[in-house]
């Protein structure tokens, strides 16, 4: 058992729902009790979709457990087929139904429906949402793709690709697809299909018609794309186009696969505003800000590169809840010389951030809670999604406009450069107390001054078992602006421990400051 306050991923059957809902002409019959119908609101409320997900739940009850749950399931499949007339069906079980072992696949097969029925085995006590989505998409492609359909010879036609990965309830997938489609259009590349989002089973049949696959979200599309590479000889992209540099690299990779060249305008630094905005003197203050990055594997890897190469931050913490992408995250962490955090335990993430005392967190909605509690700024860069992640406006994180969006997103939580200076200069000013927040944020003060949170706390404050601060040193520390005080406290304590100092004085504080200068 794992104690969970927040969970980063839904159970795997929700991943399957995301694929079913993204597609057209698919219906999913899920063997599940009534409570599991909550998942509909993810789509209709959080993502404001206009139609219910194409999912039928058997909603068996305790009294059904005697023995007729299998009949109930078969009846539900028949009824759903009648009512919705899908081109293909998915069948499976949620966590509770998995325990009663009714074999949805076998039961559905027994009905001999005249459409393909894809049985899904998604072990609910082992796997999670993204795996569920990836497995579902893979099973659909494997079952439906027509192996006889291959692209015609390249001469005399435009190169053609599939865009794989975009899905319902995905973090900014809606706008990422628009942005990438636009860029591919400017490259003269045709789109054979986008899947799962918007694709029908019929579309999937002719997936082989493309020259190569663009994999936008490896968590969802990688299994299917690897299978297509193996079985259809379709090569795939490996760069995820998040950030200015990654977008440039992605376009080069695409050009290689498409045997074409990237137009000059898309190779220019003016292709997004990120290069200029980040170079501009107003952004100098961003240099060396200590950031902690946590989220899904794809977005964390991208954010790490952006933070370092495009914002000029210092990445002081990195981690992911995507165990599937632990390997590249470990590699990135090794290059940074830090320990990665591969965990889906919210409490562990909270402890790591508190220990790290970053100036900015790039994370998920969950890290937003943590950062709020610690009085640190946070920008959301990854699922799990929230209603705020489906804005009305165009908000991709991919492509060049995505780089623009990310620049604004990452800068927003920070105190602006000249404000920093004034805050540092006149700490005694009675208006410059710790409740003074970035002036561009409305009516706020940092959580540091809120009543002590009643959360499951991550235990001892940082100096409980470390060196003690004498009075003058504590006072001197308070003269440091709140947005760097955590770092100063941490550095001083580290310095004290290293030098076996048990009582921190004003001198220790300045010795540590000099020691860690820069």
């Amino acid at each position, binding site marked *: 058992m794992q104690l969970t306050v927040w969970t980063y991923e839904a159970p795997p*059957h929700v991943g399957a729902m995301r694929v079913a809902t993204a597609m057209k002409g698919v219906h999913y019959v899920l063997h599940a009790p009534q409570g599991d119908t*909550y998942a509909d609101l993810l789509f209709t409320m959080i993502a404001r979709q206009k139609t219910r997900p194409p999912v039928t739940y058997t909603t068996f009850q305790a009294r059904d457990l005697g023995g007729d749950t299998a009949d109930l399931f078969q009846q539900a499949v028949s009824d759903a087929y009648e009512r919705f007339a899908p081109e293909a069906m998915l069948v499976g079980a949620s966590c509770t139904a998995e325990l009663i072992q009714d074999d949805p696949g076998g039961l559905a097969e027994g009905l001999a429906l005249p459409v393909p029925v894809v049985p899904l085995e998604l072990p609910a006590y082992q796997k999670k949402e993204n795996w569920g989505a990836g497995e579902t998409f893979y099973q659909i492609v494997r079952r439906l793709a027509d192996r006889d359909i291959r692209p015609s010879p390249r001469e005399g036609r435009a190169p053609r690709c599939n865009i794989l990965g975009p899905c319902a309830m995905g973090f900014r997938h809606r706008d990422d697809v628009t942005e990438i489609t636009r860029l591919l259009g400017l490259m003269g590349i045709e789109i054979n299909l986008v899947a799962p989002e918007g694709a029908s089973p019929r579309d999937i049949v002719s997936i082989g018609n493309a020259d190569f696959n663009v994999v936008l979200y490896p968590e969802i599309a990688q299994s299917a794309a690897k299978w297509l590479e193996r079985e259809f000889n379709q090569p795939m992209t490996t760069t995820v186009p998040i950030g200015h540099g990654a977008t440039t690299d992605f376009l080069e990779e695409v050009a290689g696969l498409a045997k074409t060249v990237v137009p000059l305008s898309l190779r220019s630094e003016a292709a997004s505003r990120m290069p200029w905005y980040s170079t501009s003197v107003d952004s100098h203050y961003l240099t060396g800000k200590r950031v902690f990055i946590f989220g899904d594997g794809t977005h964390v890897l991208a954010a790490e590169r952006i933070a370092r190469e495009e914002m000029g931050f210092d990445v002081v913490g990195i981690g992911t809840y995507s165990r599937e992408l632990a390997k590249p995250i470990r590699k990135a962490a090794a290059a940074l010389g830090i320990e990665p955090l591969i965990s889906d335990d919210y409490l562990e993430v909270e402890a790591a951030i508190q220990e790290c005392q970053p100036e900015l967190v790039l994370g998920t909605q969950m890290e937003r809670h943590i950062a709020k509690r610690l009085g640190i700024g946070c920008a959301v860069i990854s699922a799990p999604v929230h209603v705020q992640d489906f804005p009305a406006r165009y908000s991709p994180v991919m492509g060049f406009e995505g780089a623009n969006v990310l620049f604004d997103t990452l800068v927003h939580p920070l105190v602006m450069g000249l404000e920093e200076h004034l805050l540092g200069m006149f700490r005694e000013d009675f208006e410059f107390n710790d409740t003074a927040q970035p002036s561009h944020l409305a009516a706020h003060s940092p959580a540091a001054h809120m009543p002590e949170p009643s959360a*499951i706390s991550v235990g001892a404050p940082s100096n409980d078992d470390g060196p003690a601060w004498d009075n003058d040193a504590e006072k001197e520390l308070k003269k440091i602006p709140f947005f760097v005080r955590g770092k100063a406290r941490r550095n001083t304590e580290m310095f004290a421990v290293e030098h076996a100092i048990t009582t921190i004085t004003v001198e220790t504080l300045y010795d540590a400051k000099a020691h860690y200068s820069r």
Partner: protein
Amino acid sequence: MTQARSASFVGNPVVVPTASDRPVLKERGQREVFCGLTGIVWLHRKIQDAFFLIIGSRTCAHLMQSAAGVMIFAEPRFGTAIIDERDLAGLADANEELDRVVERLLSRRRDIKMLFLVGSCPSEVIKLDLSRAAERLSREYAPDVRVLNYSGSGIETTFTEGEDACLEALVPDLPAAADDAPANLLVVGTLADIVEDQFRRLFAAAGIDQVDFFPPRRARELPEIGNHTRVILAQPFLTATVRALESRGASLVPAPIPLGIEGTDAWLRAAAGAMGADLNQLEAAIAPARKRSEAAVARIRPELEGKRVFFMPDSQLEIPLARFLAREMGVHLIEVGTPYLNRRLMAEELALLPDVQLSEGQDVERQLDRVEAANPDLTICGMGLANPLEARGMPTKWSIEFVFTPIQGFDQAGDLAALFARPLGRRGRLAFGGEEAVACN
């Protein structure tokens, strides 16, 4: 304001035939309702020093954060102990695992005075004995933390039945009143703090001082119970709790739910009657609030009068709400669904409810067919269903809002009416909505 008045309702009563054995359409099919776990969303706010630990799957944890996540400011006072492979395969002893999780939780969070172990579908199916675990843990953490258990599983409970199960679990802990204790009034069912305060003031003005509310705001402030306890329901969905309270000697005061002016008036009178209060004094006490609420409600009535309303089954509040709409707002009811109908607890409500199609249980697809066919002016439904109806041009209201909003009592009758009027008013305000649904994603 000492003028005595008769108890007759003074709004715009709609006189219709009523009967408590009226026919009900019973349906069985796909249900589209939350399970009882969802009750934690408001219970963990109401009982401030309690923590709710669900023993369940990742689905349970995800349900809680999805249903409640958008509403949570600070850290929630609930969590999930997620059962994993090792627990199922017997590689880990479930009780040891649970002990470990509880220890981690309580050592980090020392403000918890009461811990509920909440059963779920998976824990029920694998027959995890949470009541024994609760007993064991309660012994271990006594006297700091009391540990109780109940089931919020979706194979046994529907939405608000989670509160019923939770309160039922609390009843054995209520201290026994002395045999010669004076009569006390126990108001049962979660109310907003501000509404409790109002009722307490009204009762005090009517000379009734022995009033307790259940659940209490703090876990250790449990009211006494005994043969002289008069139970009156503030919420309709408390079947098991009433049973448990009766088994402790309390007696139920028959009354409608205090929604709307009529409901509140009758409810207060029933309570006062049961407590032997002076009805003239009561009338004097409540007349000002009732009078102003009439003005407030009357101002909104024109927006709802004659409108056709459909209730999908969700919170069991459907019948009292429908009764209010029909009798005080002149609404035409198309269908009133309820997930479960307790004819005894609903007797006073059913007596007031106009003739209307009642339905119990659900086959969501067929019910939506009926909604589509009826094309109501307003549909009250669950969160998952609302936007698809809105997209088809049919205004909706989330049923969950009636659980989360202070709507009981005279001074909230206007707010209650406004809640129903708001979706209709919004359509009137907006320059949009003339078009059929067009996919915009």
